[in-house]
């Protein structure tokens, strides 16, 4: 098997037993990354430093040091995480060339675990978008069909993992930005419970929703990465105060009453009827239903549930997220760092020109929406109403979890669309977030698991949503499915 086909777990084992060195893997992948620049997945390739780090890990291993399961494994970070020594842009002209004096907690923790970062990955500007077409540095192409989008906002992460440029990458999910690109690109991604990963060093989009997670080729690989990147961080007041978690062990732990043929015996999976509307694309519906049938074979019981406010999650999200964004992005004023207009007449002119030049259209749109809904006289009607509904949406989930262990459905209503297909209608793109927004608003963990292929041979993802802090159970179910299927291991043509 070529090196680039090995996932995180497999690579970790091969490195630990010294069948291969980190330097070899890193060099090999750097070569592939260079060859696949046209995908647009990378914004920065940090070759020299990556090779240095790989070499030092190889030396430590050679000297007999005991290293963890991720030591020497190459990854890369969505450019929404700030990193020392390599620019951090958030996909925005506003931060072109910006050098952070510190590493994000997620970045530092993965480095501490021995992951070798090969660079920074493209994303929608400030993580706002679901196609990666909103990056100031050009779009990313979907390896399954380069005329199509890879999804977003973690599009560079998804495309790089799908194209076998990396075994895994970090991403962030505010309203679906890990799950939807994982679905569009045929890989596995998990957004953990809000608070599991520290937000320190993540360029903020919507603080109450932003959450980091891994994109990889399997649930097992995600579990290994998530264990290393998560955990309480005193620098993030919203991070959950709980002991470190071994998600890999949780994933492997057998269910009570399970047998080798039915590892998911006793698991109740709820299917919200609102996740299967008449308008759902037939190929997506068929693929998801087939995957669910596989879960039944594995011992799970499917039951009907309801999330009655699923449709409302769209307006609720598109009020709360832009409201927070309008405030979070106020710091980009051209005063201390970032883009400042070359010419301006006074302070106000400097603000207006710097921000007009530095931000892209979608970011401006959301800043305007957010500013509007927080304005005097509109706050109660929009923001406050949205907060109340958000609470009700979370309560709806708790109703469901009274009847089932997991909730399943599609990640997105369609497979990946063609580049430019939604240029004229931003609202159409917002509507496509319908299945990922509810879990985001509730702060629940959600996964995208490759479920098969739809129209044009494009991947379709199955979404699994768990209750708070049940990542272990989510990963366990996804892992069982992946042991019985090989959709997650399929490689786009030309990238084998």
């Amino acid at each position, binding site marked *: 098997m070529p090196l680039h086909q090995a996932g995180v777990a497999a690579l970790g084992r091969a490195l630990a037993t010294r069948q291969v060195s980190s330097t070899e893997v890193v060099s090999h992948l750097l070569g592939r990354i260079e060859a696949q620049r046209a995908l647009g997945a990378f914004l920065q390739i940090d070759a020299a430093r990556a090779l240095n780090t790989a070499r030092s890990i190889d030396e430590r291993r050679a000297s007999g040091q005991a290293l963890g399961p991720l030591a020497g494994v190459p990854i890369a970070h969505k450019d929404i*995480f*700030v990193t020392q020594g390599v620019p*951090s842009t*958030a996909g925005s002209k506003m*931060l072109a060339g*910006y050098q*952070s*004096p*510190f590493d*994000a907690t997620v970045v530092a923790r993965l480095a501490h675990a021995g992951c070798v970062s090969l660079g920074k990955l493209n994303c929608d500007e400030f993580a706002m978008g679901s196609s990666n077409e909103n990056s100031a540095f050009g779009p990313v192409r979907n390896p399954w069909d380069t005329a199509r989008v890879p999804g977003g906002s973690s599009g560079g992460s998804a495309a790089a993992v799908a194209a076998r440029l990396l075994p895994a990458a970090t991403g962030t999910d505010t309203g679906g930005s890990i799950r939807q690109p994982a679905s569009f690109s045929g890989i596995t991604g998990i957004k953990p419970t809000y608070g599991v990963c520290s*937000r*320190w*060093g*993540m*360029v*903020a989009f*919507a*603080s*109450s929703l932003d959450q980091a997670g891994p994109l990889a080729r399997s649930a097992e690989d995600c579990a290994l990465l998530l264990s290393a990147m998560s955990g309480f961080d*005193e*620098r*993030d*007041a*919203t991070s959950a105060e709980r002991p470190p978690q071994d998600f890999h062990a949780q994933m492997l732990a057998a269910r009570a009453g399970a047998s080798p043929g039915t590892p998911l015996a006793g698991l109740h999976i709820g299917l919200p009827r609102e996740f299967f509307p008449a308008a759902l694309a037939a190929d997506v519906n068929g693929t998801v239903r087939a995957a669910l049938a596989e879960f039944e074979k594995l011992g799970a019981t499917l039951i009907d549930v309801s999330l009655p406010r699923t449709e409302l999650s769209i307006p609720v999200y598109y009020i709360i997220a832009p*409201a*927070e964004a*309008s*405030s979070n*992005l*106020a*710091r980009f*004023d051209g*005063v*201390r*760092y970032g883009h400042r207009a070359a010419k301006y007449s006074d*302070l106000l002119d400097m*603000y207006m020109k710097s921000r007009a030049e530095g931000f892209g259209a979608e970011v401006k749109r959301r800043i305007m929406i957010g*500013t509007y809904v*927080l*304005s*005097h006289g509109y*706050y109660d009607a929009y*923001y406050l109403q949205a907060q109340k509904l958000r609470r009700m949406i979370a309560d709806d989930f708790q109703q469901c979890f009274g009847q089932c262990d997991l909730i399943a459905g599609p990640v997105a209503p369609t497979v990946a669309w063609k580049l430019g297909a939604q240029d004229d209608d931003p609202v159409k793109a917002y509507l496509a977030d319908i299945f990922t927004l509810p879990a985001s608003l509730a702060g629940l963990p959600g996964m995208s698991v490759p479920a098969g292929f739809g129209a044009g041979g494009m991947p379709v993802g199955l979404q699994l949503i768990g209750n708070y802090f049940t990542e272990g159970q989510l990963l366990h179910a996804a892992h069982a499915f992946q042991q019985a299927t090989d959709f997650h291991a399929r490689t786009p043509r030309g990238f084998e």
Partner: protein
Amino acid sequence: MTGPLIRGYEVVIGLETHAQLSTASKIFSGAATAFGAAPNSQACAVDLALPGTLPVLNRGAVERAIRFALAVGARIAPHSIFARKNYFYPDLPKGYQISQYEIPVVQAGTVEIVVDGHKKTVHLTRAHLEEDAGKSLHEDYHGMTGIDLNRAGTPLLEIVSEPDMRSSAEAVAYARELHKTVVWLGICDGNMQEGSFRCDANVSVRRPGAPFGTRREIKNLNSFKFLQQAIDFEVQWQIDRQEDGLAIEQATVLFNPDTGETRAMRSKEDAQDYRYFPDPDLPPLAIAPQWVERVRGEMPELPGAMASRFERDDGLSAYDASMMTQSLDFARYYEAARDACGQPKLVANWLMGEFSKRLNTEGRDIAAAPVAPPTLAALIARVVDGTVSNNGARQVFDALWSGQGQHVDALIAEKGLKQLSDTGALEKIVDEVIAANARSVDEYRAGKDKAFNALVGQVMKASKGQANPAQASELLKSKLGAA
């Protein structure tokens, strides 16, 4: 309640006071808060609002707010909310200020003031935690503006009063009492020159019985004198407007100490829409009863309680007790001196008299007094045991204050101020004086009290001032009576 009228108008004043909390680090970051450091040397990544940074609340700031709440009998919100106040300004790095808006940590409470001997209760609306902004420096940068972010993120407690004050004197009394309280509690250094304690005054005027007039807010008054002057000017200005039949518009005004005038900075029409909303980076501030109790246990005794104790245990008058508790340093001095000599009333008299006079003249704080409590106590002890007269003691005090010496007994000896307490020696002098001043003796016996004073004077003179006058007159009386 109607206060004193000015030109037939009643004055209505409410104060918003910013007290900088005395934490070593900032309210949402680990950077230091010391005053006067080189520009931007005390601004970390959080204060600069670099991408990816997040605020984490300093519990020390919360504890100080709890102390304040306990001192003014306020309600401590079990859950209060930090909100973002959004506006663009170069010295506001995040583009918003983190403050408390709808649910502040301290709610209600009262402050007792005394003006011209009349007690009055000023009600507090609230007190909330917030961060300070940085500073824009418009000079010294060749037409450009410099930004110093050392102050950005400094913790503030904004204390808001009800419009309960009816004169500038009441406003000043309230501000002084608040200042005393926060300094007493150790939650603010009270340094007004450095901006650690500053007031905004909301002022309006009305005819008695009429609804509240439109208020104007005087910003950033950093001395009690300016507070008084600014309000006095503003009140006259507002009455002039009303008398001229002109409307008063709600506005924010600045006080110019050089001209003594207030001038409008911006009107209500320019009021910004701050788009307040709960800060999603900070969970609600939860204060459990146990936390409150722990803080209560660590509180210093409050001035009111301490004054009552001085009245009860030390036998001080209410006035003396209140003077001894004018500040925590003053009270500590009093207690130390009292414990050292066991003479509460004399210590109080000394502190209110000679001592305060000198402090005031020299503009010193009691903590910087050159005479330490044990020294004052030693001096008082020598007055009590008759070693030195009150007059002599004042001379010794002079010497102590001006640094001529530190030892009371040595100074008494050096200056020859020791009183004659040997009865035999004094008797001899008294006998000689009686023998040598037959005329005065006769006059005294004839009922002239003045003659007796002359005899005492003669005894003092003959003893070179070392006789104890009380002892001398007693001896004289008994001898003259017996003759």
